[in-house]
């Protein structure tokens, strides 16, 4: 007979909140990123435009239009991946951040941090891709800056872009404007970008056909705004995925949001890799998708318009907004259960077994 331990142990170490140094999770777009913003940036820069908590800021002025501005730094390994590259990403990412305000993008700036030793050919290819994407979006790149750092001090090439849009005073799209009774639409399949980049790194030993969805969405967004200027909230679910972005909106608007698992569009190949690795596609990054939260009567018309656009062919209504459970997102599961859809805390990590 073995002597088994008295099973009353209660052992745990003190918490490690990662207050001392930056860890990779601070860049995940999840709770750690939020914590960083709240502890370091908001106290330093606090002002009304920033405190609105959107990915863009509205700048008031004397003219007929208000100005929308947003900025985004882009890092990605590898620099080129199926469906895109860092150049297309840098242009699309910032255009989408300003386009979801409902404004019309009018110009971009770009600054480059280049690592010593980067082949000129690579830079030329990235610049051409930026030009092509900007031309597609109809937004000129009007100013820029270049810095070079010593070999080993950057990973090839980092690009930071800033975008400016103008917006009429009638449009009030805001993460804080979702209303009970609204419907939630997603413009297409989830998780394509994150899984395409992960597979392209070649560390997984899987060969996949998954292509990133990186794309500028300003034309799609303008089309649906023509049909429904009363859209309440719009946001592109990038890092942290659909789940994290919906949580931001539910908290900003102080509403509950429920989405239906069986309505969420995910490509079978994305689902397969996520299942294998233990990722949840609802938390994987997208770079060419938009969440639209709008009054119920406009849903069918807006969906029809989205389906006619190449970046909205798989658009679906996935959920609804309610007054109960304010600040929470719920998932109605395929088998009839309901559970919390929480914010990602740090980096998403593959499972063990």
């Amino acid at each position: 007979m073995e002597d088994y331990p008295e099973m009353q142990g209660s052992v745990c170490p003190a918490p490690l909140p990662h207050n001392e140094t930056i860890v990779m999770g601070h860049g995940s777009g999840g709770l750690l990123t939020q914590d960083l913003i709240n502890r370091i940036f908001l106290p330093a820069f606090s002002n009304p435009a920033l405190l609105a908590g959107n990915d863009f800021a509205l700048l008031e002025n004397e003219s007929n239009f208000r100005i929308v501005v947003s900025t985004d730094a882009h890092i990605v390994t590898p620099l080129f991946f199926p469906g895109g590259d860092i150049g297309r990403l840098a242009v699309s990412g910032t255009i989408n951040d300003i386009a979801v305000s409902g404004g019309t993008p009018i110009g971009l700036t770009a600054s480059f941090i280049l690592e010593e030793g980067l082949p000129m050919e690579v830079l030329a290819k990235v610049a051409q891709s930026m030009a092509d994407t900007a031309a597609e979006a109809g937004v000129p790149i009007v100013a820029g800056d270049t810095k070079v750092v010593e070999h080993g001090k950057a990973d090839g090439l980092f690009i930071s872009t800033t975008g400016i849009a103008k917006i009429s005073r009638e449009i009030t799209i805001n993460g804080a404007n979702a209303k009970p009774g609204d419907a939630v639409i997603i413009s297409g399949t989830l998780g394509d970008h994150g899984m395409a980049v992960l597979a392209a790194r070649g560390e997984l030993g899987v060969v996949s056909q998954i292509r990133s969805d990186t794309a500028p969405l300003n034309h799609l967004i303008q089309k649906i705004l023509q049909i429904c200027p009363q859209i309440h909230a719009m946001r592109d679910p990038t890092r942290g995925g659909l789940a994290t972005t919906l949580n931001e909106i539910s908290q900003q608007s102080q509403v509950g949001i429920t989405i239906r698992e069986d309505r969420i569009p995910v490509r079978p190949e994305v689902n397969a890799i996520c299942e294998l690795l233990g990722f949840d596609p609802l938390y994987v990054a997208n770079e060419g998708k938009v969440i639209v939260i709008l009054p119920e009567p406009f849903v069918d018309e807006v969906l029809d318009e989205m389906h006619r656009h190449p970046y909205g062919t798989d658009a679906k209504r996935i959920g609804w907004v309610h007054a109960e459970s304010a600040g929470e997102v719920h998932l109605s599961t395929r088998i009839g259960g309901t559970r919390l859809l929480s914010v990602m805390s740090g980096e998403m990590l593959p499972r063990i077994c």
Partner: protein
Amino acid sequence: MRYLDEFRDADLVKKVLKQIHLKTTKEWVIMEICGGQTHSIMQHGIDQLLPEKIELVHGPGCPVCVTSLELIDKALAIASQQNVIFCSFGDMLRVPGSATDLFSIKAKGGDVRIVYSPLDAVRIARENPEKEVVFFAIGFETTAPVNAASLLYAQSLGLKNYSLLVSQVTVPAAMHAILSSPQNRVNGFLAAGHVCSVMGYHQYHAIAEKYQIPIVVTGFEPLDLLQGILMTVEQLEKGTHMVENGYSRVVTEAGNLTAQNMINQVFEICDRNWRGIGLIPKSGLRLRQQYSFYDAEKRFSVEEIKTQESAICQSGQILQGIRKPHQCPAFGKECTPQTPLGATMVSSEGACNAYYRYRLTPVAKG
């Protein structure tokens, strides 16, 4: 997706659920051993669909949660050394040791790498002959074969710069420990399907007999889990205590003999400390004497590190099914995935983490 969608089919799920509701007449406490099963139960909301008389409690089958503080401190000591590339499954990076964690060591310049398989660590060793490459070999019988395979592969390549920091644990020993406890509440077990795919389920007959408890080998999809619960309830209601296989598309009685041979070739049984539980006799695997060359504890002289665990959180009681995550006063308040007090909150396979992520208010946040 084949082999996935069928096992998430809403109509089939409803049929099995109906059977469970029909057959349940008394109160039963059923423990799923494996953290992957806990995760799946919460992810699909299965717990809310069961009769109130059935209580699911969550077992110690989360390898991240049960790896002892002492071994984590050893990992941290090795990963901090110059000239070391420390390779680990991702979840281990978040687990706090006595003073720091692997994420922090990485942030301060340590070469800590997340790998998806120990064979990736062998590749890294091959590509970096001037560096020492250490793989943190944690897990249950599921990871043991591939961890053993990595050592044999490194040996066949003649690599001298590869070693394992071993923290392998085994399921049957944990079941013995839980069932021997005077506080035990568990009436039936869902055995961990993936562990059984490697080890088979012949080991469980003795446990079922000794403790008069039904054990059903169970998979991970909603239909698998409900099928396992149904088979357990049927036995409990009838008063039988057999070992049954509810995951026959994957598991056989004998298991995967090639994998078992590989485990036996490289590892031998040892006593091991479980975080939150304490020393469980014959519950671990360590490298056999003839492979001690590949033992990172010996290579980096960390055998002397002895860490006492201090009592703050209740993960020990949660790992044994004595308490539920939301019954801990720190749950969702001081203790969240971002600031975990206990390892059960760290890993996606940990019960507290699954409750935090998936359970609805008001229960969810205490």
